């Protein structure tokens, strides 16, 4: 038992140690599974039950290592009555058999929760066994078997010494070959014939049309040879074609799957939230969140994981998830789903389920428009390609027919159809973009989807926001001017500022260092203007001068950001925060100027003009006092004059402009909010590499072009031999997946090479 606890500690060390003072939560959870005592609930969750045994499969997404595997499979030692526990690691499920006379479902679930593997129970989970599709792997097995055996039986044809073996056994072996070829033709090649048929119906020819034709021709030719001419058969070539094509498809699918997998689980989604650990607050990436973590979520922030409301007034807008724009008020202790947006004050949530950044990425992609133009172009290219190949094939067949060389004609016919491969056209961009996304995300830029890369390559004009984008969000020097604030007033301002994620509010909150805060009765955030709220029957506002005191006299410009305070109708004074620019900004701006047009927009006053103009050099537009609408209009105006615009901002008050621009990048420093309006998120530490990333995306387009060229060369060389009838069909069948693999390798190596200059981000 000691060893089990030891293993237990190893794996759940971090989870158990985080909350020494969480007795209260333990108490609440004791009754959490009371509903599992009900018979109707149990019967919906289990797979099988009789007098003694009950079978149930639990989904346990938390398992991630072999210790988890060990622990879960030894559930029987922890809970009496559990007879078997078997883990399917890939599906993250555990299949449990327990004796209903010795234990109950509730006890099993409570035991699992106690060791840190609370199962994700959902009423529909028991019924969702969708049958897995094994047809392709079955087809590959049969095709491989038949191919190898037919080839073996064709040895007499290849190696007959003075036709001795051939005479004795030839015909019989050929007929056996036919028998073996039948399942390959009728079962294993189904997908090619089905796709070819549908492509003819839609009049969009694709590569399957040529392959299907090649298979058909080889088969028919062999039949003709066998029954009419009693000559050589080519069933081995036909089954070879089918086998290698299927293997190539399988390899393609796996690579694409692993690219997607990479994105979901391993790539860097640079959104962090504040997590309360013991008494202190730390920033943690949402991918590192664990169950039972207490996180802080502010106004306008997206909830990163399914969680329970622990503290604060939650009003959640689920428009990101469901499209429903009416926000809902949530009771404390209730579940809030990932993807919802908090409106209002700062709330604390307890994480229920490890966040799934793939889920958030999917929601993100639902938001914007998608770029299907590229795909349509590819379809058209593949259509013409196939037509040209057909033309060439039949032309050469005619040529050899006229010359009277039947053998060569058949060879030319079938091998041309196989060798001509538009694969690179279809695959090159997919693989290259997948690689580019991977390289960019390890350098700190996380893109919504692969189509953004082509947009990035076309950018001509860059627009940068000032506050939070080119200035640091931290390290503000804060000073106060005006009538000194009383402690109580300071407390009011700090309590209000705490709920805002604007860097200026956070800086003021940090500067005031108030310990006891007052609960806020209402809080609202007006982007570009300020925040206001009611505390203890006092009306407080902080923000720009126009917001706080409309129609006031023109202020003297200063080189600081100013936040005015307004309490119950009086403006006691103003906080001045000095701008600190990011290190390396000047070099970055200079190098941007060399290749792009640059503009800087700021919501602040124009005191910074000289400093910025020095940094950027002449010819850069710098505008101040920009409202969110002004920024949006500026971007629109640039676009109507015919240029592609990239905008980088912090997403707080430029969401509209980000969405309008061709590429909108949100700059994340630490735990800022996730902006669905953006096309990509860049980590603040990586911001100064933005111009290099744009250059990289242009190079990516070059990589795709080069792989096209390589593929065309391959086709030309292959066709040169095939049209002359010099290529054996089996060799052609091997060459095709080989070319696919080589294109994959080329795109991978080239994109790595171009990306070598991008620094990897230390996480």
């Amino acid at each position, binding site marked *: 038992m000691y060893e089990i606890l030891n293993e237990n500690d190893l794996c759940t060390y971090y989870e158990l140690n985080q909350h020494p003072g969480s007795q209260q939560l333990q108490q609440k959870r004791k009754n959490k599974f009371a509903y599992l005592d009900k018979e109707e609930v149990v019967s919906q969750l289990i797979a099988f039950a009789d007098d003694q045994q009950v079978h149930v499969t639990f989904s346990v997404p938390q398992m991630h290592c072999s210790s988890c*595997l060990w622990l879960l*499979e030894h559930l029987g030692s922890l809970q009496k009555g559990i007879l078997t526990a078997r883990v399917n690691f*890939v599906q993250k499920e555990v299949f449990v058999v327990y004796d209903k006379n010795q234990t109950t479902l509730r006890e099993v679930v409570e035991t699992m929760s106690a060791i840190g593997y609370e199962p994700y129970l959902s009423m529909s989970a028991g019924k969702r066994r969708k049958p897995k599709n094994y047809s392709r792997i079955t087809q590959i097995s049969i095709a491989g078997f038949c191919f190898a055996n037919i080839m073996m039986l064709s040895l007499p044809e290849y190696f007959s010494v003075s036709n001795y073996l051939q005479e004795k*056994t030839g015909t019989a*072996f050929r007929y056996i070959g036919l028998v073996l070829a039948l399942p390959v033709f009728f079962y294993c090649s189904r997908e090619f014939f089905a796709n070819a048929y549908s492509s003819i119906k839609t009049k969009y020819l694709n590569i399957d049309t040529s392959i299907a034709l090649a298979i058909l021709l080889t088969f028919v030719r062999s039949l003709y040879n066998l029954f009419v001419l009693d000559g050589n058969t080519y069933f081995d070539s036909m089954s070879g074609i089918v086998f290698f094509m299927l293997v190539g498809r399988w390899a393609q699918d796996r690579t694409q799957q692993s690219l997607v997998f990479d994105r979901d689980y391993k790539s860097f989604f640079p959104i962090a939230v504040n997590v309360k650990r013991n008494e202190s607050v730390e920033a943690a990436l949402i991918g590192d969140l664990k169950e039972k973590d207490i996180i802080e979520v502010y106004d306008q922030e997206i909830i990163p994981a399914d969680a329970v409301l622990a503290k604060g007034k939650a009003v959640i807008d689920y428009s990101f998830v469901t499209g429903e724009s009416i926000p809902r008020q949530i009771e404390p202790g209730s579940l809030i789903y990932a993807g919802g947006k908090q409106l209002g004050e700062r709330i604390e949530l307890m994480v229920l389920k490890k966040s799934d950044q793939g889920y958030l990425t999917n929601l993100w992609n639902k938001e914007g428009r998608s770029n299907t133009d590229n795909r349509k172009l590819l379809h058209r290219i593949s259509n013409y390609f196939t037509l040209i190949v057909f033309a060439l094939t039949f032309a050469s067949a005619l040529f050899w027919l006229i010359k009277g060389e039947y053998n060569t004609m058949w060879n030319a016919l079938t091998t041309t159809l196989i060798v001509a491969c538009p694969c690179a056209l279809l695959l090159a961009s997919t693989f290259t973009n997948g690689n580019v996304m991977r390289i960019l995300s390890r350098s700190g830029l996380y893109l919504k989807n692969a189509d953004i890369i082509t947009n990035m390559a076309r950018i001509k004009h860059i627009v940068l926001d000032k506050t939070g984008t080119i200035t640091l969000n931290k390290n503000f020097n804060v000073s106060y001017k005006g009538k000194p604030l009383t402690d109580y007033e300071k407390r009011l301002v700090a309590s209000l500022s705490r709920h805002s994620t604007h860097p200026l509010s956070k800086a003021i909150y940090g500067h005031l260092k108030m310990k006891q805060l007052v609960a806020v009765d209402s809080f609202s955030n007006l982007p570009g203007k300020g925040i206001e709220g009611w505390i203890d029957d006092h009306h407080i506002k902080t923000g720009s001068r126009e917001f706080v005191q409309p129609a006031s006299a023109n202020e003297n410009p200063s080189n600081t950001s100013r936040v005015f305070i307004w309490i119950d109708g009086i403006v006691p004074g103003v906080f001045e925060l000095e701008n600190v620019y990011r290190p390396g900004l000047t070099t970055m701006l200079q190098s941007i100027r060399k290749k792009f047009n640059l503009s800087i927009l700021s919501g602040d006053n124009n005191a910074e003009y000289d400093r910025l103009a020095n940094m950027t050099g002449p010819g850069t537009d710098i505008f101040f006092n920009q409202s969110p609408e002004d920024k949006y209009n500026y971007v629109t105006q640039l676009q109507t004059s015919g240029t592609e615009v990239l905008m980088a901002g912090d997403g707080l008050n430029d969401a509209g402009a980000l969405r309008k621009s061709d590429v909108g990048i949100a700059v994340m420093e630490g735990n800022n909010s996730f902006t669905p309006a953006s096309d990509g998120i860049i980590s603040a530490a990586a911001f100064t590499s933005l111009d290099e990333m744009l250059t990289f995306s242009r190079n990516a387009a070059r990589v795709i072009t080069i792989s096209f060229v390589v593929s065309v060369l391959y086709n030309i060389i292959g066709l040169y031999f095939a049209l002359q009838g010099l290529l054996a069909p089996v060799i052609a069948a091997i060459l095709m997946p080989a070319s696919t693999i080589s294109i994959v390798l080329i795109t991978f190596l080239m994109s790595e090479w171009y990306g070598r200059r991008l620094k990897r981000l230390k996480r």
Partner: protein
Amino acid sequence: MTFMSIIIITAIASLLIAGVFLAALIWSIRDGQYDDDFAPPNRILFDDPKKTNNK
């Protein structure tokens, strides 16, 4: 029929036997035995729980 034609019978026989193995392979794939490729290799490395006599 010459004496060499026995090879036809042996070829057919071996194909049939091999076919049985192919059927077994396909059956095991469809039964889902290859779905999880992480657990089985790790499972064989677990130690059996030692019987502790200290009470």
